[in-house]
């Protein structure tokens, strides 16, 4: 299966975005950084023991699924929405949801609009090759209002168009909207409308049929989530490991039982994954959280214990 391939290769090939602020893009030195990228690193650490052994393959909206289907990448962690047809017809498995997103609208304040339903006749910038265009069509249709789509190739182009006023509203996933808003000259002049017109569960994707590999990616992600739940962080992981008495943490950190072996990994897999860039919350804060220029609130992505949707099944 894929696990053997990855091990044999000594490298995880991770499909990422060509460039999406906060989620995945190369920095000035060419190293990939971002929210999605850290999950790639965690998987690599879990499987290979070295977070650096990842090869990032930038994929466009058009090439991403083909890249995965053809085995060019082992896993696609590239803000892709989990939909029925992608799961079934395209023969993929979405193993988890690492970011609950939804499609929203951003408009300029001086447009005087406070709800998406007032957008009748508006021009809307929209990226092609994504689910957003389908959602948009559905939303306007169901509200019996009209719009003019302006198709743009990527986020930065959309932003430029929007900024120049080429469209009244920019629609994309709310996370993207927040990032874009942050980079505008005066973010305060723009508002993100309250309507979230779609469910956009974004998550890592693997090929259908290789269940073990799917499990590895899924549980690596859940390990990060559980770590947050249990307060295990990058900084305190070693200390917790030595002092904890909580059986669940013990299982999580491989101190008890041999969960790794059931997936073909060793005992320390999850500990390594967490050690790379910390737990889910830490990763979130580091790349897209409120302390970053992007400034996303946890919202739906808060832990279930804090009113969010992020809920990791028990590790046992």
């Amino acid at each position, binding site marked *: 299966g894929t696990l053997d391939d990855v091990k044999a290769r000594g490298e995880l090939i991770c499909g990422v*975005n*060509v*460039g*999406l*602020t*906060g989620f995945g*893009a*190369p*920095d*000035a030195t*060419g190293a990939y950084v971002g929210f999605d990228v850290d999950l790639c690193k965690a998987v690599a650490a879990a499987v290979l023991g070295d977070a650096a052994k990842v*090869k*990032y*393959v*930038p*994929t*466009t909206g*058009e*090439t991403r699924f*083909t*890249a995965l*289907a*053809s*085995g*060019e990448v082992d896993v696609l962690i590239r803000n892709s929405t989990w939909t029925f047809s992608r799961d079934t017809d395209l023969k993929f498995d979405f193993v988890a949801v690492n970011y609950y997103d939804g499609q929203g609208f951003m408009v300029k304040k001086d447009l005087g609009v406070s709800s998406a339903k007032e957008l009748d006749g508006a021009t809307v910038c929209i990226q092609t090759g994504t689910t957003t265009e389908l959602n948009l069509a559905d939303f306007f249709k169901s509200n019996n209002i009209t719009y003019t789509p302006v198709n743009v190739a*990527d*986020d*930065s182009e959309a*932003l*430029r168009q929007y*900024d120049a006023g080429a469209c009244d509203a920019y629609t994309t996933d709310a996370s993207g909207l927040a*990032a*874009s808003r*942050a*980079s*505008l*000259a005066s973010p305060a002049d723009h508002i993100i409308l309250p309507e979230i017109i779609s469910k956009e569960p974004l998550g890592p994707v693997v090929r259908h049929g290789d269940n073990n590999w799917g499990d590895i990616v899924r549980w690596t992600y859940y390990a990060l989530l559980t770590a947050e739940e249990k307060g295990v962080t990058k900084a305190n992981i070693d200390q917790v490991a030595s002092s904890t008495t909580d059986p669940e943490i013990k299982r999580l950190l491989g101190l008890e039982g041999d969960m790794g072996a059931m997936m073909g990994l060793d005992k320390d897999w999850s500990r390594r994954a967490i050690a790379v860039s910390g737990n889910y919350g830490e990763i979130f804060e580091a790349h897209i959280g409120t302390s*970053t*220029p*992007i400034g996303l609130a946890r919202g739906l992505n808060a832990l279930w214990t804090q009113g969010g949707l992020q809920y990791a099944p028990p590790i046992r």
Partner: protein
Amino acid sequence: MSLLYIRKDMLGPSAPPASQTGAIRWLRENLFSGPVNSILTLLAIYVLYALISLSWPWLANGVWTASSLQECRSIVAASAGPDAGGACWAMIHERWHQFIFGFYPPDLWWRPILAFGLLFVALAPVLYADNKSAMSKLCGLIGVLAVLCLIGADGFSFHTVLAIALFAGLTAFAATKPRALLTVTILFPFIALWLLWGGSIWGPITALLGFMVMAMIYSLIAPKLGPVMGASLGFIAACLWWLFLQSYVSEAWQALLPLELTYVTSDKFGGFLLAFVIGVASISISLPLGILLALGRRSDMMLIKTLSVGFIEFVRGVPLITMLFTASLLLQYFLPPQTKFDLILRVVILVTIFSAAYNAEVVRGGLAALPRGQYEAADALGLDYWQAQRLIIMPQALKISIPGIVSTFIGLFKDTTLVSFVGLADPLRGITTIVRADINWKGIYWEPYIFVGGIFFIVCFGMSRYSMYLENKLKTDHR
């Protein structure tokens, strides 16, 4: 009437009347020779003025050092007033290396620089044939430039010394034995491969051995069974070598004598480095292919002609973008299950196929320009088809075709920007997207395009001038 007239003293030349010279006349003749012309001149001056006044303030307010777009904006606002626009060249200042080298590790930049320099040395024999002085001048110049680039890239180091020695040696060769440079031309693909990707030196060497196997088999078989059989059996043998033996041999030698450069994976390639790798690789592989296709298209054999024509017309009939999408979307369907290879390699293959069709047409033009007599003379001397092609026809046809090939290359080089559509980091859109994904530079728009466009212009303009120069030269010296 007597017809006789003799001029006793010959007149010397005298200066033309005043109305024939001077700046006023030049102006009158070139700019204001009539009402229509005068209007056109004024119109042109107005257009020039409008263009300059539109773009000058923006260029003049440019900021060269800043760490983010916001900073640029505030610097411009501080110096030129809140509404003034200004270019933010600081981004180029910070990210230029990604536009040039992509993600190639900075401490290894000397390798692409050296490879690029050697490219010109390899081209010298093709461009200048036997012109010793031109060749040595070119080699020397390239050497100096390469060394300067190296010093710029990582200071004065071991590589600089290496480069100085290498280029000095090559220049000396060019000056004394220009033919010897042909060896560099032949070896260049392997050298470049090794320099760019690194890894064990035995890889390229054993790959080269494959060609030697081919040559050996050819020379053994060709006299007995004819050149076609020789070539095909040689090719098969070489393929067998490459597929089954090469890796063992190269590993064995590597174990015996480890000689290697740090391995750099393809995904580190980007920017103009990527554009040149794709461009040069495709054009050099597609040229032989193109020659074969051109010969096929001119062949008397129906089937071969039909296949060649079909192939050429098919490839020329579809846009390059669809070929690139084929490379990234469809190739996996056509290859045996489980074969995987690098996207860059796939793109190079498809682009090669694409330019082969164009080169075929260029070469066909060159072949058609040769007088029939050349073929007949070769026949009458008893040369066989392949000998005639190799010794008589191709050297001449290719020489005629060089301008066309250069044009194809220019087109191809410009088209490498399209690889961004399949997710590669080309300088125009790929790197620009990446740079803009950085929160510091998000929102920057014109500067990268102007920068990249400028480099494209310089390279392409240079090449097109060169091909024009060649065309003129060929016009005069080909009979």
